[in-house]
């Protein structure tokens, strides 16, 4: 009989979700407990933002999640709008939605690499990269940068949209949809993928929500929980879209929900793009000093709900900035719940990590 022993997993391991480590307690091949070892990427982002002035603090606000920076950018901009008590123009509101949704799609396409890699199906991941590449090109065309766009600022958006914005954006949504359909068919329809993911890492939506998780993990478990519907920000109340949900709550359902979400995001973009017209005002000037008060924003990012809380005491810098990230509960409470209630082997662990899709820098900040 195999004895019980302790193994360190990560931070340098192909199956580890980013630069993050685990202390695994094993009984034979079964993983009994996983203790998270975070901190490899800790830079003190919140303090760094507090040490900068209002006008340049937002440059740092989105830099701790490479895959999905725009949801954070939108969240911080919205929190500062509330601190400065300004109402951004409608065009800016709709543009922020397009930006956040494209970022969600790019993030999900990046996730295909992890999910496909952990199940040994490399081919569709490269197609997904093509979709991501097209989105990054669009971002470079509109904002001037590929990854960190720095375009949503307090008071609106930073510049006028380029000529032919509507046509190119709509075209891009159809191009991305074609690629995503191919990827979905090749990945979710594959027998190996189904065997590796069905019944692995089961967690119900209501349990996941109680354990602190949000996003596709909760929706994959069958719970219709989406910040865009329950507490609409920007103009999500003006567009129509569905919340895709899974049934069982296993790794396959979470993957399915992510693909369905991409189609819903494309639907949102096609509706929002009609409201972004050239020539309309896009930004309201905000003062250099903020009035005393608080700003609080919740956004639905690719991995779940981000909340930003900014406190101002009337100075030139924020007094306190706090980010709540969706990734930490995924690797602590949710992961240990799965390990307690299911027989998880070492080989299943990378699949579960990939299907939970945590972002390591987001935990450490």
């Amino acid at each position, binding site marked *: 009989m195999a004895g019980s022993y302790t193994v360190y997993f990560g931070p340098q391991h192909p199956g580890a979700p980013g630069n993050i480590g685990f202390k695994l307690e094993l009984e034979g091949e079964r993983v009994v407990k996983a203790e998270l070892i975070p901190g490899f990427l800790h830079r003190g982002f919140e303090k760094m933002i507090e040490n*900068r*002035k209002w*006008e*340049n*603090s937002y*440059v*740092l606000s989105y830099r701790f999640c490479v895959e999905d920076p725009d949801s954070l950018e939108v969240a911080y901009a919205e929190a500062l709008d509330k601190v400065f008590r*300004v*109402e*951004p*123009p*409608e065009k800016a509101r709709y543009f922020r939605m397009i930006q956040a949704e494209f970022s969600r799609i790019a993030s999900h396409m990046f996730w295909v690499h992890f999910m496909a890699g952990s199940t040994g199906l490399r*081919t*569709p991941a*490269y*197609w997904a*990269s*093509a979709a991501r*590449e097209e989105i990054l*090109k669009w971002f*470079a*065309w*509109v*904002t*001037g*940068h*590929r990854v*960190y766009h*720095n375009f949503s600022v307090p*008071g*609106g958006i*930073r*510049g*006028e949209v*380029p000529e032919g914005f509507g046509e190119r954006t709509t075209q891009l949504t159809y191009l991305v949809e074609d690629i995503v359909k*191919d990827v979905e*068919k*090749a990945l979710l*329809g*594959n*027998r190996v993928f189904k065997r590796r993911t069905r019944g692995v890492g089961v967690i119900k939506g209501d349990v996941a929500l109680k354990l602190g998780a949000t996003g596709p993990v909760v929706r994959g478990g069958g719970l219709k929980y989406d910040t865009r519907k329950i507490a609409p920000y920007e103009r999500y109340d003006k567009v129509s879209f569905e919340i895709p949900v899974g049934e069982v709550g296993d790794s396959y359902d979470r993957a399915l929900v992510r693909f369905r979400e991409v189609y819903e995001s494309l639907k949102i973009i096609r509706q929002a793009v009609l409201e972004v017209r050239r020539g309309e*005002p*896009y*930004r*309201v*000037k*905000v003062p250099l000093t903020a009035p005393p008060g608080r700003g609080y924003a919740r956004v639905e990012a690719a991995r779940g709900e981000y909340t930003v809380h900014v406190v101002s005491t009337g100075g030139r810098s924020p007094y306190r900035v706090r980010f709540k990230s969706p990734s930490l509960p995924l690797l602590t409470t949710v992961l240990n719940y799965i390990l307690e209630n299911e027989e998880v082997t070492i080989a299943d662990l990378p699949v579960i990590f990939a299907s939970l899709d945590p972002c390591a820098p987001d935990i450490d900040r």
Partner: protein
Amino acid sequence: MVLSTIVKSIEYMLKRPYTRLVPAKSRPFKTERLRGAHLLDMSKCTGCSMCQLVCPANAIDMVEVEGNYPQNPRRRFPRIDLHKCTYCGLCVEYCPFNALYMTSITGFELYTRDKKTTLKTPLELSKVDPSLITVRREMLAVKEVKPGG
């Protein structure tokens, strides 16, 4: 299902590749409003230090330059460390005299192990080709001034 994936794979193989060999075979991806290395107009800069104050990465410091600049009696101009710069464009946005621009110079042109070559003095910044300018202050400045949307 596997067969259809193989057919699709062959289709993708026949398409133009998305990856590009930079700099061996192709230039870096450029767009019309790409935020790249800076250009300084020394005939406009008054040495007010606004760019230095607003820079989130502390990439800008003000240095004294030899020569005669009537609008800038202290002859202090920004020196930019392109290794520290995040290319956010705040210096261009906040420059009150339209003296700073951003150009399409980016990517491998800036990549070097010798950090001395990326610390650009004001004279070096002013000698960049003006035809490469991509970002001007008008593109980023606020059009709507009244609060309330």
